[in-house]
Structures are given as structure tokens and as C-alpha cells.
């Protein structure tokens, strides 16, 4: 479950920002997770509770903003939101997508 490492990275980023701003307690953390980022929301939430113990983020809320997968067909240029990367283009039927968004894995902000 790599979500634990991901959560650990989020805690490191948030802790550094909190310390730089003289914040001693973080109430909430906003995270952006793309649908094709390879991270599962439920696994992240599961890891969160255990990982934040003993940190400035103890009992903080994890707010996950999901970003849909948007691709552009490199054959016909059509933009669409597929369920999977290998779903064929509804415009021309080919499978040749370029990801426009959906790979994101970002810490957006914290609330103190």
C-alpha cells in the first residue's frame, strides 16, 4: 500500500509549511488527487488516521478533491473523460489518448 508513503510525504510537506509559518496545530489539509494518479482515496483515508498521530496534524481532517481523467485523442483531437485510459475515443473509435489532466497528486493548502 504505497498510500502510506504518499501520506507520509504529505505530512512532511505540511509540517515544513506549518513550522515556517509558526503554526502549531493543523486543522485540515486539502489534497488534489487525479483519477489516474495511481492513488486510491479510501486507502489514503485509512492511512491518514494512523499516520498523523504524534504530528502537528493529529486529528486533522483530510479533504480530498478528486480530479477527473481528461484526455485528448491524438488521432481526431476530441477531448473526453474516459473511465479507463484504454477506453476508445467516442469520436473516432481509436485508442490513442494524451492525458490532459487526472495525474495530479498535490497538497493544495492547510487550514490552521
Amino acid at each position, binding site marked *: *500500500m*504505497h498510500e*502510506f*508513503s*504518499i501520506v*507520509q*510525504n*504529505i505530512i*512532511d*510537506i*505540511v509540517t515544513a*509549511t*506549518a513550522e515556517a*509559518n509558526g*503554526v502549531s496545530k493543523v*486543522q485540515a489539509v486539502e*489534497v488534489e488527487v487525479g483519477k*489516474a*494518479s*495511481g*492513488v486510491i482515496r479510501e486507502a489514503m483515508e485509512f492511512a491518514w488516521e*494512523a*499516520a498523523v*498521530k*504524534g*504530528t*502537528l496534524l493529529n486529528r486533522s481532517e483530510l479533504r480530498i478533491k478528486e480530479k477527473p481523467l481528461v484526455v485528448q485523442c491524438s488521432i481526431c483531437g476530441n477531448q473526453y473523460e474516459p473511465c*479507463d*485510459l*484504454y477506453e476508445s475515443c467516442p469520436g473516432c473509435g481509436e*485508442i*490513442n489518448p494524451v492525458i490532459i489532466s487526472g495525474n495530479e*497528486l*498535490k*497538497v*493544495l*493548502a*492547510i*487550514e*490552521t
Partner: protein
Amino acid sequence: MCENCGCGEGGGYTIINPADQSHQHGGSHSHDPDHNHEHSNGQSHVHEHDHEHKRISIETDVLQQNNLLAQRNRGYFEAKNITCLNLVSSPGSGKTTLLERTIRQYSSKKIYVIEGDQQTSLDAARIQATGIPVLQVNTGTGCHLDAGMINHAVKTLNPANDSLLLIENVGNLVCPALFDLGEKQRVVIISVTEGDDKPLKYPNMFGSSQLCVINKTDLLPYVDFSVDDFKLNALKVNRNLRFIELSAKSGEGFESWLSWINEC
């Protein structure tokens, strides 16, 4: 397992040199002294709150630290003209056997190996037996190698200029996909005893690799694996993926793999 608190998720790893069994620890997390300070209902005490919530914008990639370290590794490899390959697959696809034969047959460059496993030095011992420099990274509870572990291991291994560094990642088709190690090429290995629909089930891994080695082709007559269906599925998630079919056991198809390394 974190030795400070027994929490089981420290992220700490161990680098073992099978030559002398010396080892180093790294990557353990820090602890707040209030670690176990919790209150159940009824025991709460008064906390002061100023009730002024402030939002601080961060906008940082979660994997930024790993990606920065990966680029540092990449720069080091480029400067020393070291070809670094990251071998990923599910457990049991034959990565270590592929490495053993590669070490026996590849003579163009000096080879170094970094072995990644959750536990044991069994794989490093197999590589050690071939006589080349190898380090084992035990990730503990971690399910993948990361750029920091490779940075640490490479400093110890100190590979020579113009060499080939082969990294055998932890056997797992999910987690290692997200972690750039600084490799020149990522090679996903699949054995014909697995399903030919694997690329559709694990698109991140096949999507992020440049080469796919189809291993154990000597077993093709005995299994239902269709090489054509497999390739079609893999190309659906990565239309630039290249393929090499071989048997690390019999050596069939091995020349293509060795020439591919030379072209890297």
C-alpha cells in the same frame, strides 16, 4: 516496524552489503514527544482556541521530494555515464534469474546491482554468488524502492564510470510505478504464467515503462497465455512500449535483451 514506537509504518529501510553483512539504516520518521497523548471522552482537559482559522496555500506536488532526489540520481548517472535500469514486476516473474543470466552473458560494461525486497538478503546472496558488487535494500513495511533509498545505496556502492547499474525493485505491480528512482529506462517484466490481461489491470506500471520483457517463454506450450493478446492489451495503455520475448532459464531470446541494453 518502527523501533521507537512499534507503530509498524516508520518507512525506515536497511541497506545490507551481503559481502560482509554490514548494514546501514535510513529514512526513519521523527517523533513528537506527545506521540501517545490521547484523551478518551470524559478525560478531556481545557484547550485554548483562538477560533481564527487561517488557510495557507501550499500547491506542492506530493512526490516532489522523491522526484527531486530522482533527478539528482539521474544527474549523477549521466555525469558518470552509468546506465541505470529499474526492473519492476510482480513477485515470481523471474527478475533475479534474468539478472543472473545477464551478469553471466553481458560483458560490455561492469555491472552493479541494487536488490529491493521487503525482507531478507536472499536475492542479493544469489547475485553475490556471481561475483559482482551488490547491495540489498530491505524496505521493511514499504512496498517499493524510492529515490532516497537509491541515493543512499549508490553512495555506498560507488559504481565506476561507464558501468551498468541494475535495480531490482520490490516485486509489486502497483506501488513502484509512482516512484521515479532516476533510472534511464524502466523495464517491466511479465512471465507467461501470469494473465495476458495484466496491463489492463495495472495500467500505471505498464504505462510508465519503456520496455516490457516477456519472460519464461519456454513455458508457452503449457499455459494459456497469448503473447499477441498480451501485446495488444499493453499497447492499449502504452502505445510506445517495446517488447522482448525471452526465457531467462533457457537463454532463448536473450540476445535481443543484451542488444537492447547496449542501445540504452
